[in-house]
């Protein structure tokens, strides 16, 4: 909402600069996007270089047919000025820019030779002065304009415009007078009465006999008012009106249209002017459009209407879209003589729906959308009637049309001073509370000790409850005066849940081992399922689909993290980043049977490409299955938990170098080298090892509180053991056999070497184990240890056909 400062000051006696007022408004709830200067720039005495001049002599230019050479009195002296316009004669008064003057478009005028004749200034058009969007010829001022005085003191050629961002709950501030009332409330400045004083009609006819108006759909039109102004002369608006229309950001059209816009800008009520001669059948009906009806709006576009849309129809059909735009058919033109003025109240949601459906927004529709005050209808008609008779020379035809049902009663709200104190934390004097509310337009009566009975004005439909009044009082009282305190009686414990703490530990563990964390979008392209080679019946194909995605690349909610990470690896590889090892904590969205919302699972996922490290000291290693497994084990170790592995059937992993991660017998994720076909589907030419684990499963695997075990009193014995087994026997099988044979004195067994080659038979391998023996109650003797070891060897021979390697 653009509010020209000079216009605002017509209604409120504010003793501040525009910039100061903008600051005050910002702190009391009206956001000011900026304060813009319009018209002639004001700095550096520039306004002094624009004066009122009088043309004394007009002679043809000696060298140019289209130019004239004028002598212009600019106050005590006559300057020679070359002019291209023809719309004036000797004696006319006009706006003169003297040499050095800077025009609104930034041009600086200098004295110059024009076709060999020196010109000491310029006679300006309204467009050049920035007070009109176009003009034919120079600006002609009234005959009593004082020659030699500054133009700005008589015509609004310079202004500052407050550009307000009005929140949707304050449609009353979509008007200059509404803003003036707000300014008066927050600054204490005096407010003038609303400029809506009425005029007396003339003549003996009656609007009711000249035009017939009815409302067929009152649900969408709570109030419809109309007046008739006869015998107007349509033409350009006076300069002051044009200047205001331009400063408000609109385009001057003609005096009739400009007046309707001016009233809308002043009071907030959108109006429409019909050319009565073009209203077919002299009859208007406010009704829903009929299937198939069309209208050509004043912007020249033909629009198809639907039965949800409200129109104003005449004998020929729709002649305006209610609250949005009129039609070419009934538009006011230069030869219009009788004006049918409309001020109405249309249903907000209906106007918004129609406006969205048609893709057509106007100053009118943006106001109606927010719900306008029904009381504005007669006041807007009064103000417009007065301006129209004054400016366009018509007469107000007696009689008035005002169709409405029962108007809503004023809302009454009770307010307790004690409630203000308890909600805000500051005591406000009841007298000050009442004064603030009254300045805002509320009617306040004292009711008991520190209580008020507050009547809400109809332009503040947003105020319904005590808390709404408290907000009004507090914002004007000053939010800066509220003390800063902390909740004084907090009886709860803060902090992270075990799951949240574990998630942080896991993330830190991975970052601590060299992985970088990424955050990718939760939605991806639907072809990820094919690129991952997922089977047709894989539940991970049943992704949640967006109804209105921005693009197909962001159209389904992911059921697995891997594709997002592979794409991130590819993007980083493409810009030649090295050491790409990344992880993400995120959510996957899995189908849930019979529930409204999907099953959201928090997971941690990683893609590894190179852990060898760079630099002059080598140490790391390239990435393979065991890199992934080692990190998964490290992840579980952060919560003192563990997982099992079983061969994976996931089609996006290398079939021989992949595993399902198992926790408590349930699948909790996967780890493995990514399948070469999947790598190429994601345009990757480097090997990738990936894993993905459910965070709840990690937490569930935790061993919980650790109990002390005495490992110091009686020392352990260590023995190494190497056995040769068939290649197909997994290490875990060997360890299981060792553990069960070694119980209870065997305390631990670990693989420390694997060998296959010349020193063992083909098709077999050697597994070297370190065994730890201990007893909680004595130091073991060699005999005890040797007995257990022998038993382990026997069991390995028996169960796995292992042979001792010596």
């Amino acid at each position, binding site marked *: 909402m653009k509010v020209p400062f000079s216009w605002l000051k017509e209604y409120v006696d504010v003793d501040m600069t525009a910039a100061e007022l903008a600051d005050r408004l910002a702190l009391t709830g009206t956001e000011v996007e900026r304060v813009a200067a319009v018209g002639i720039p004001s700095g550096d005495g520039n306004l002094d270089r624009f004066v009122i001049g009088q043309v004394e002599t007009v002679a043809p230019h000696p060298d140019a047919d289209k130019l004239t050479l004028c002598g212009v009195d600019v106050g005590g002296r006559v300057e020679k000025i070359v002019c291209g316009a023809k719309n004036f004669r000797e004696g006319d008064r006009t706006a003169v820019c003297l040499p050095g003057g800077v025009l609104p478009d930034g041009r600086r005028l200098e004295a110059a030779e024009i076709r060999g004749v020196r010109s000491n200034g310029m006679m300006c058009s309204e467009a050049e002065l920035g007070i009109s969007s176009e003009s034919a010829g120079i600006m002609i001022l009234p005959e009593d304009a004082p020659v030699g005085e500054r133009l700005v003191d008589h015509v609004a050629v310079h202004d500052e415009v407050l550009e307000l961002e009005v929140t949707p709950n304050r449609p009353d501030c979509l008007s200059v007078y509404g803003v003036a009332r707000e300014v008066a409330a927050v600054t204490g400045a005096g407010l003038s009465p609303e400029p809506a004083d009425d005029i007396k009609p003339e003549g003996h006819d009656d609007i009711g006999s000249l035009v017939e108006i009815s409302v067929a759909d009152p649900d969408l039109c709570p109030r419809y008012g109309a007046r008739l102004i006869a015998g107007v002369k349509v033409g350009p608006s006076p300069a002051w009106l044009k200047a205001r229309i331009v400063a408000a950001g609109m385009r001057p059209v003609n005096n009739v249209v400009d007046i309707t816009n001016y009233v809308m800008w002043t009071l907030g009520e959108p109006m429409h002017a019909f050319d009565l001669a073009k209203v077919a059948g002299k009859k208007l009906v406010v009704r829903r459009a009929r299937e198939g009806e069309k209208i050509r709006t004043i912007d020249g576009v033909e629009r198809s209407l639907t039965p949800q849309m409200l129109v104003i129809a005449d004998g020929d059909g729709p002649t305006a879209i209610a609250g949005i735009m009129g039609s070419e058919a009934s538009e006011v033109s230069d030869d219009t003589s009788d004006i049918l003025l409309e001020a109405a109240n249309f249903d907000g949601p209906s106007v918004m729906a129609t406006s969205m459906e048609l893709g057509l927004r106007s100053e009118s529709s943006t106001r109606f959308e927010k719900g306008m005050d029904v009381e504005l209808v007669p006041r807007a008609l009064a103000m417009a009637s007065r301006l129209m008779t004054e400016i366009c020379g018509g007469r107000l035809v007696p009689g008035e049309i005002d169709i409405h049902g029962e108007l809503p009663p004023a809302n009454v709200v009770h307010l307790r001073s004690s409630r203000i104190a308890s*909600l805000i934390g500051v005591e406000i004097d009841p007298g000050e509370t009442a004064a603030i509310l009254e300045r805002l337009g509320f009617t306040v009566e004292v009711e008991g000790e520190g209580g008020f009975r507050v009547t809400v004005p109809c332009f503040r439909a947003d105020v319904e409850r005590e808390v709404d009044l408290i907000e009004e009082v507090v914002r004007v009282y000053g939010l800066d005066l509220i003390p800063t305190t902390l909740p004084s*009686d907090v009886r709860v414990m803060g902090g*992270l849940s075990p799951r949240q703490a574990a998630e942080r530990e896991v993330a830190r563990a991975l*970052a601590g081992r060299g992985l970088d*964390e990424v*955050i990718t979008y939760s939605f991806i392209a639907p072809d990820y399922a094919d690129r991952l080679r997922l089977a047709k019946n894989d539940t991970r194909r049943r992704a949640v689909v*967006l109804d209105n995605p921005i693009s197909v690349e962001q159209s389904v909610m992911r059921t697995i993290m891997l594709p997002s990470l592979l794409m991130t690896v590819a993007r980083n590889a493409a810009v030649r980043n090295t050491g790409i090892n990344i992880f993400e904590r995120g959510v996957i969205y899995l189908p849930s049977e019979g529930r409204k919302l999907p099953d959201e699972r928090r997971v941690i996922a990683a893609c590894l490409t190179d852990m060898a490290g760079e630099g002059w*000291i080598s140490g790391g290693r390239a990435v393979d299955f065991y890199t992934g497994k080692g990190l998964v084990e490290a992840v579980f170790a952060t919560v003192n938990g563990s997982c099992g592995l079983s061969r994976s059937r996931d089609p996006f992993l290398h079939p021989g170098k992949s595993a399902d991660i198992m926790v408590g017998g349930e699948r909790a994720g996967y780890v493995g080298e990514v399948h070469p076909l999947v790598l190429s589907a994601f345009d990757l030419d480097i090997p990738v090892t990936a894993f993905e684990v459910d965070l709840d499963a990690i937490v569930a695997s935790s061993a919980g509180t650790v109990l002390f075990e005495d490992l110091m009193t009686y020392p352990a014995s260590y023995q190494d053991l190497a056995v040769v087994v068939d290649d197909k026997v997994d290490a875990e099988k060997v360890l299981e056999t060792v553990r069960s044979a070694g119980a209870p004195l065997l305390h631990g067994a670990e693989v420390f070497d694997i060998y296959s080659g010349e020193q063992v038979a083909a098709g077999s391998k050697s597994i070297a184990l370190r065994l730890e023996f201990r007893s909680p109650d004595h130091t073991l003797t060699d005999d005890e240890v040797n007995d257990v070891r022998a038993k382990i060897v026997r069991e390995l021979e028996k169960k796995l056909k292992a042979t001792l390697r010596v």
Partner: protein
Amino acid sequence: MDLKRELKKHAGLKAMHEEAVADISSAGTPDEVEDARVRHLGRKSGLSQLLRSIPELPDDEKPVVGKLGNQVRAALEQQLADRRRELEEGELSERLATEQVDITLPGQPFPRGHLHILTQTIWEIEDIFAGLGYRIAEGPDIETDYYNFTALNTPEGHPARSSHDTFFIEGQPDVLLRTHTSPVQIRVMEKEEPPVYVVVPGRVYRRDSDATHTPMFHQIEGLAVDRNITMGDLKGTLEMFVKAVFGADREIRLRPHFFPFTEPSVEIDVSCMICGGSGCRACKFIGWLEILGAGMVDPKVFGFVDYDTEDFQGFAFGMGVERIAMLKHGMTDLRMFYDNDLRLIRQF
């Protein structure tokens, strides 16, 4: 006892001692020290022979030679040990002096990864509020229209409820991607009676994609509901938060605003951390930067969760994590957070 004076009593011992002392002092290597030991204290040395011959000496000489001889032996042993250590340390120092490395080469690389800057920002904020007694609450990304809008007092027909602004789920017109973290407020209050002190971090989604909007971003929401919570408490809490994140000399100011789920509603500005409040390009020459929306929980919201509005009141606040991170670290392009270029991630 002064050995030198005592030795005047026995010219032979005196001569032996003097010779040995000179010999040991002139030894230049540990091997030469060993040679001197053999020469002067070995079985064949004059001292050893003298001490062995004591039984054959006249009775009056026996105690003098015995006592003095042992003293000489002890003194020479001490001198040998000192000389040996002196020479060994010298040798070590010489060797170490030749073993100088280039201390300017990089150290052994221990891999160090990086948490995403948004993660670091979220954790910092969570920890501040955890210290003030808040728990961390979470909720689903895919939400119902009820929790995302209705229970937060967003009117039907509000532009945010349109498919222009919000992502909806195919085939389920009342299911959507949450547009803010506020639905978690409702979920928490439905489950728990006051006192409630929670912060809610999370991903949120809006149908916007341009230089200043990404379709997914992060918010942190806060909610405090108790018997005597005031707007002063809101102001004090957020002032403490702002000082913790942006520095102790930052200040806040409240501006009235409008949100459907709070009343009164405010926006909160922090004094510009770049210019200190005097005005610069970052703060559009106002000296203040908008960082938070907040307010007292609207009684209508309490109505949806059956809290008694005469007994309980509370405040809520919300902020964009990306904005906080950008202001704190001087980043200018929101989209960088989601490019996941390691050249950015590894800076933090």
